[in-house]
């Protein structure tokens, strides 16, 4: 054993070398992960988004890359998380000023006294649906009766979407054979036949199932109910104290969406070159299709404008599902469309 024969001095030297190596390792780790500092005259904004970096967020990537945020004096950075509720909590605490949040979360948060405000509607069609293997012939909400249906969990946009579809068919959860919580693993569960249908995010998951195992049918929630989908959300403090910042964010996001709708291919290139860098090239074609599917959900004659009726329907579904005990005192406080640029 070499250690047995080492002198005290030699051991001390080795120990010192180990300490230096550790320090160098730490310094290297910090140096490799150093982030660029924002320009002094710009306001730093972290935009919270659920899920992971994806071509579905191409509008904000395009807005960042083409300087639309910088034009508004904003140094933008993006943060993704699977837990949307955490983002809402941080927005309510003003730890974050902006996030892309789904409409039902805004209603639920305000019911719990969280002062979040929806200022721009990004998705004009609700992005949730039910996917099932084509051979099962599940094409209408009524066909779900007696089926095993998967859902990420009994909350969130997916669950609300399912409840809206069941309502449309005059069904309840009891009419299903089973409502199974499967987390975010719909493709695995559908391909393995563990569920007969599953609630999914329609822009990507049906595509994955189709590519991996079987032809599918998709029932889109937006064909049966008008619910409030994802949009730009801020908080009352930011609305009150920094209205120009809110206006700038809204304008930059709107320009980004318009650009992507006009030229999805360019947007895709920007996204994968600068922001979704971990995407392997063999997935490019699939992800290009995901972006095109997403664009279909963003189209609107009045980009960013929300529909008050959709908020009322969303609230009703939440009450009916037992997630909200009573209507909000002022449902219209959930949204504020005054920051939208004048429509030309």
């Amino acid at each position, binding site marked *: 054993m070499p250690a047995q024969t080492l002198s005290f001095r030699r051991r001390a030297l080795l120990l010192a070398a180990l300490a230096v190596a550790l320090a160098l390792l730490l310094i290297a*780790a910090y140096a490799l992960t150093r982030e660029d500092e924002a320009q002094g005259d710009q306001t730093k904004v972290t935009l919270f988004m659920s899920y992971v970096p994806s071509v579905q967020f191409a509008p904000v990537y395009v807005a960042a890359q083409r300087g639309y945020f910088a034009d508004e004096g904003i140094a933008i950075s993006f943060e993704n998380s699977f837990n949307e509720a*955490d983002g809402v909590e941080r927005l309510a605490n003003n730890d974050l000023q902006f996030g892309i949040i789904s409409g039902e979360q805004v209603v639920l948060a305000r019911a719990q006294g969280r002062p979040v405000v929806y200022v721009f509607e990004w998705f004009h069609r609700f992005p949730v649906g039910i996917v099932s293997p084509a051979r099962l012939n599940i094409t209408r909400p009524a066909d779900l009766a007696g089926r095993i249906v998967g859902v990420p969990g009994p909350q969130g946009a997916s669950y609300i979407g399912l409840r809206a579809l069941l309502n449309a068919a005059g069904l309840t959860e009891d009419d299903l054979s089973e409502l199974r919580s499967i987390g*975010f693993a719909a493709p695995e569960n559908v391909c393995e036949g563990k569920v007969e249908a599953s609630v999914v995010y329609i822009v990507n998951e049906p595509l994955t199932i189709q590519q991996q195992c079987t032809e599918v049918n998709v029932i889109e929630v937006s064909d049966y109910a008008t619910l409030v989908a994802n949009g730009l959300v801020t908080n009352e403090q930011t609305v009150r104290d920094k209205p120009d910042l809110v206006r700038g964010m809204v304008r930059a996001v709107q320009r980004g969406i318009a650009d992507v709708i006009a030229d999805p291919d360019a947007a895709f290139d920007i996204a994968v070159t600068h922001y979704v860098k971990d995407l392997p090239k063999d997935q490019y074609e699939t992800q290009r299709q995901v972006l095109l599917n997403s664009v279909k959900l963003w189209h609107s004659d009045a980009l960013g404008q929300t529909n008050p009726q959709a908020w009322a329907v969303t609230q009703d579904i939440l009450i009916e599902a037992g997630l909200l005990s009573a209507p909000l005192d002022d449902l219209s406080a959930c949204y504020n469309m005054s920051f939208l640029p004048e429509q030309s």
Partner: protein
Amino acid sequence: MDNAHLAPPVPHERTAESSAALPRARRRRWHLLLAPAFGLCLLAVWTLVARSGMYAAFIVPTPASVAERWWGLASDGSLLRHAAVTLREVLTGLLIGVAVAFWLGYWIAKSRTVAYTLTPYLVALQTVPIVAIAPLLIIWFGSGIASKVIICGLIVFFPMLVNTVIGMRGIPAELHDLLRSLEATPLQTFWHLELPAALPIVLGGLKVSVTLSVVGAVVGEFVSASAGLGYLINFGRGTYDTPLVIAAVFTLTALALALYGLAAGLERLLLGWQRANGTP
């Protein structure tokens, strides 16, 4: 808390009469082959399952597709970037967590007042599932490195604390009496008696903490991150890129093993005198 029980059992010394030197050396070489051979068997089973068609390729990918994905990440530099982020969180959290735990453990072992005051709270802290409070820590300390370092520090804290207390309390009282009779100062007592005597157990705690530190960083990255190996796993899950998930998990394992190796090396270096004296 020492994990010495994980190490392979050391065979009893054989007498020269019972066994010749050459077969013993051969046996040692054969033992060295056991772990790689077992690894190859696992790899073969994995390949068979992946190729059997029992599962879709995106559920159980082949080892070759994982290796290809890993190589792609390594060659374009993204693996290094993500590993550096995790390493930064791990090392910072580990250094802070271990230092605080050692300091607190020392005082708990030395002072009944400190022990009676803090122990119930420290045990209670350990019972809180870190996964449950990680989102709260992100809300309180932001989504930057601070929250991950705190999560990491919390997760490494307890094993180090417990081992420090056990190590310090295990020092025979007569040795303390001897140092007192020599009129040693508290610093001299710490440096010449307490630290060397407690070191074997403290280093056992360090080895456990080192492996847990990687788990801590990944828990933090799972909740919210824009880089790091935990983020990479989340990204893989989100894009149904199972080879990426497995490649990132293997890299994490390699990182944990490397850190464990460093801790074991430190132990060997610092406790060489014990081996030389024949102490187990």
